[in-house]
């Protein structure tokens, strides 16, 4: 019984984390057709900036500790916006509409660069921002099982971000325009949509989401080199399962992977390593375009 609860809650927590990581990536792909290999670096940069600022905030111990909960997203937004804008305007702008695979390679190069860049800025020693994680205390289930409220909060945040993204795409004019771009770039251009501006905005939002995922994770981990590379393949798996470019898909993929993984950890820890790829394989073997992806046959 406790195990079942544990599986469900762990699954939900891990799923929301996966969703936070994958959301930005899938949005960027959906609009720009860029599968962003450097997304993990955004995650790392978000984590580093948050961790360094939060630990500074507490080391100079003035003010209410709860402010740190606001510092985290603030860092993410600033860091993500800066790096996102920089990369989009400095590089990707010149590559709009290029071959998807080429863009994978370009962003792969970006990843290599950003990995060392973060190292140059923050060094190799770990950063800690554990205070916010402790701040919210814990909730008990059964005799021994306890969860950090901070993790439970992540579930809420993931849901909110998901809903906001959905509403923004479906309930606002800008969002409708964006979907027009996603659906058919040529027509959108013909309609006079400023695609370049759309792309810039999308990439910045995606970068901010990536950084946000990092910033929100920072308090629970020791922020050290390599954390970015770890998340890329995970995020890939999730959005490929869900269907590239679909927010709903990312959510579904995250939930599927999250639950599958926590089930494995509790029931058969040995297979934990394969679960994610296993799921990805099954889904794609049955539904090549992913859960929510749509196939478009070529007109001849």
């Amino acid at each position, binding site marked *: 019984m406790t195990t079942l609860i*544990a599986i469900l809650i762990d699954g939900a927590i891990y799923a929301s984390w996966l969703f936070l990581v994958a959301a930005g990536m899938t949005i960027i792909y959906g609009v720009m057709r860029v599968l962003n290999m450097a997304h993990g670096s955004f995650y790392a940069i978000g984590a580093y900036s948050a961790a360094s600022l939060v630990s500074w905030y507490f080391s100079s111990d003035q003010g209410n500790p709860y402010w740190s909960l606001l510092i985290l997203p603030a860092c993410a937004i600033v860091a993500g916006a800066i790096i996102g804008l920089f990369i989009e305007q400095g590089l990707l702008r010149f590559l709009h509409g290029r071959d998807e695979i080429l863009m994978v390679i370009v962003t792969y190069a970006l990843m290599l660069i950003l990995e060392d860049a973060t190292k140059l800025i923050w060094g190799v020693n*770990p950063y800690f921002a554990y205070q916010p994680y402790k701040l919210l205390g814990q909730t008990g289930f059964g005799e*021994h*099982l306890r*969860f950090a409220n901070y*993790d439970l909060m992540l579930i809420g945040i993931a849901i909110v971000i998901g809903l906001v993204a959905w509403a923004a795409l479906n309930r606002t004019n800008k969002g409708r325009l964006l979907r027009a771009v996603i659906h058919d770039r040529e027509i959108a251009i013909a309609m006079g949509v400023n695609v370049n501006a759309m792309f810039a905005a999308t990439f910045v939002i995606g970068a901010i989401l990536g950084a946000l995922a990092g910033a929100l994770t920072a308090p629970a981990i020791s922020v050290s080199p390599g954390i970015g590379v770890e998340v890329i393949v995970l995020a890939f798996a999730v959005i490929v399962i869900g269907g590239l470019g679909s927010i709903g898909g990312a959510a579904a993929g995250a939930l599927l992977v999250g639950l599958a993984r*926590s089930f494995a950890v*509790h029931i058969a820890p040995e297979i934990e390593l394969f679960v994610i790829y296993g799921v990805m394989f099954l889904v794609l073997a049955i539904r090549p375009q992913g859960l929510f992806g749509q196939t478009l046959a070529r007109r001849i």
Partner: protein
Amino acid sequence: MKSKLRISHHTLRLSVIAATLVLSTTMSTSANAADNGKYRIGVVTFLSGAAAGPFGVPAANSARLIVEALNNGKVPAPYAKKGINGLEIEMVLLDENGGATKQTEEFRNLVQRQKVDAVIGYISSGDCLAIAPAAEELGVPTIFFDCGTSKVFEVVKNPKFLFRTGLDAVVDNIAAARYVAETRPNIKTIAGIEQNYSWGQESWADFSQAFGRIKPEIKVVSEQWPKLGQGQYGAEISALSVANPDLIHSSFWGGDMEALMLQGGARGLFDKKTVVLTGGETGMEHFKGQVANGTILGGRGPFGAFSPKNALNDWFRPAFVAQFKESPTYPAYKMAQAILGLKSAAEKSAKPGVMPSTDQVIQGLAGLSYEAPSGTVKMARSNGHQAVQSISFGEYQFDAKSGKATLSNVKTYAGECVMPPDGTVNADWIKAGFPGAKCN
């Protein structure tokens, strides 16, 4: 006619490209290859990736400190003589990141292109296994200052040029088992959470078997195998909480370890449980009370916080803190003792001021017993190529007021007590009940 012309051009162009490549490599290296009368040491350790922070960089810093101090004759006796045998030491630093195949390539470059006189390095077991045969093949004195795998001298049966001045991982876990058995007699159930790779798998095998041998009645209630560098242990922590063991063993290191302690602590996983971290000493500076007092930490030997009081340590520790603004952890100590081992070996037989020959170095180092900040190092195993040292475990104590972390209830185990004798496989030695172990 015209096509002939093209062919020749085409052929030419291909050849030219290749030729220039080959030349460029040889040329650009001739400078390095030049023998400048300095004693060149290749130092290989993680400068990037997850292992850089906890291990690689402290080790590299320690190497910089020691080499500089030796060159200025700043190291106290018996190492007051400048450099190595009076010759200035030149250090060539390389990143260990990038996989074993690449490391074998770089190792050969170090020896054959950069013409180093000795190589000190390697943290990753995989790299050590790959380098070991190459070291013997190329015949250059090679000192593994860390790598925990017990297979090194299984791969190279009777080593000539290969040395290891540090202990291997089996020692950590046998000592840990003894320490727990002695200090926590009423433990019934144990669980392990290990990184899912060789290090973690071997550590858990050694510990669970050793502890099971010492206390046959104990029961393993959970094994968790998160992937290396996962960073998030929510599900694993829940699983451990549900299993609710008396003791949790972990061979986690670096960021993973600190993250685990943080997340587990915040979720009360460690309340009323004993935790043993075989590599915990590297975290002492960072834990800052995130880890419950009484957590059992190991330092892979008499290093870092476990290091003894002696003249060398009285110089080394403050010097390191002064230069790098943090106290030296075990990788720093291990690097220091590797370099000092090389120095004393080279100076044992070579005439002062002369470049020591390879033979002088390897003969000097084999079976040598020398002083280091961590105390006396005896090259007593694997025909004098594997160091024997004591290993200590202790309990973490954090004083919130002073913000200082200390160790209490420290127990030290002589190498003879926890090291399998030459020619025995660890698992067999443990199963047999540690025959011939000399414990005081």
